[in-house]
């Protein structure tokens, strides 16, 4: 797409043509992605592109139709790029050492696995409502709607399922 094409699209967009504007932003997005891919860490590229698209939208009235579109867009892209570089410089960066200790998640994983094994020993209807209400945090009404059970049945299944889980856990502890 040439500069005159972009210029025509921008002029139409300034008049309020949404379809043309969508096409222009898509084209500009591709161009900006290439522009920032060479200048910023890859994790920041998408944010930078979106920021420029927003800026272009907000300042579209400053584009002069008698001037080429490319330099106008490039100036905005460069301005936002420098802004990002300044922000990166101002942000404190901490280098991670090689012997950095991290929390051991083994216990949590083991607990989750044990719970799954115990839930498998329950009736499916009990296990399902316990998962929804006690693990995923849904309300009784939401669980009832999700499973097709009545509200009172959900309550009964939870109560009975938890009691059965307690007994199963006690049995396992006794065996150990």
């Amino acid at each position, binding site marked *: 797409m040439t500069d005159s094409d972009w210029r025509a699209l921008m002029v139409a967009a300034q008049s309020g043509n949404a379809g043309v504007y969508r096409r222009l932003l898509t084209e500009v997005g591709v161009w900006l992605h290439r522009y920032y891919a060479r200048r910023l860490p890859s994790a920041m590229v998408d944010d930078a*592109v*979106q920021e420029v698209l927003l800026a272009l939208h907000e300042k579209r009235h*400053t584009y002069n139709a008698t001037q080429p579109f490319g330099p106008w867009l490039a100036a905005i892209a460069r301005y936002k790029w420098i802004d990002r570089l300044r922000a990166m410089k101002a942000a404190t960066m901490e280098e991670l050492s090689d012997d950095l200790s991290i929390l051991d998640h083994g216990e949590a994983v083991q607990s989750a696995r044990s719970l799954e094994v115990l839930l498998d020993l329950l009736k499916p209807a009990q296990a399902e409502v316990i998962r929804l209400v006690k693990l995923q945090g849904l309300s009784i009404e939401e669980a009832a709607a999700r499973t097709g059970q009545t509200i009172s049945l959900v309550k009964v299944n939870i109560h009975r399922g938890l009691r059965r889980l307690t007994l199963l856990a006690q049995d396992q502890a006794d065996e150990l």
Partner: protein
Amino acid sequence: MNYDSLINRLAEDLKPVRRRRLGLDIMIVAAICAAELALFFALGFARPLVPMMMKQATVWWRLASLGLISLISFSLAIQSFNPAFSPRLGLRWLAVIVAICLVFGLCLSAGPDGLNAIIHRLNWRDGVQCAAKMIALSIPPLVGLSVLMRRGAPTDTRRTALLVGLAAAAWGAFVFVFACPFDDPLYIATWYSVGCGSVTLLSRFVLPRFTAW
């Protein structure tokens, strides 16, 4: 890379816009400056003997220098509100012009003096008052230019803010010439520089915070 949702949102939000026109910005700034000057004379802030005052060489030096500096600064500042315009080169030329104006004023100054005579000529009590009045007179164009800058899209906000400050300060000093009772070039070069410099620096450091986009 997927910006579809953002693009759709922006396209849905699209409304026709009135393009920024350079001529309109110039007219707004010119109207503010003209109104300020007219009000200044109408309220009787000018010296009573302006025609006699105009016979002095230092008055013409002040009016010509400050008029030229404010004209160039206004022009560069308004152009800088366009993202594709860089004020860098213009600022360099402006610095040269300011230096030439100051040197010219110093050439008008009387011969060498001792330190006590210089301190006496500087007259700091009146000088501070003059600088304060200049700062007050620079507020209307400063506010006008700041609003235009916020509406525009300057991509070099620091230099643009510097130009805005210099333009407003030079105009404030230009208007103040009609009320200033002092003719000593040393006094004028010093205190006019203090007044203009204060507004320019204030604008340079404060304005970018309010006009970031």
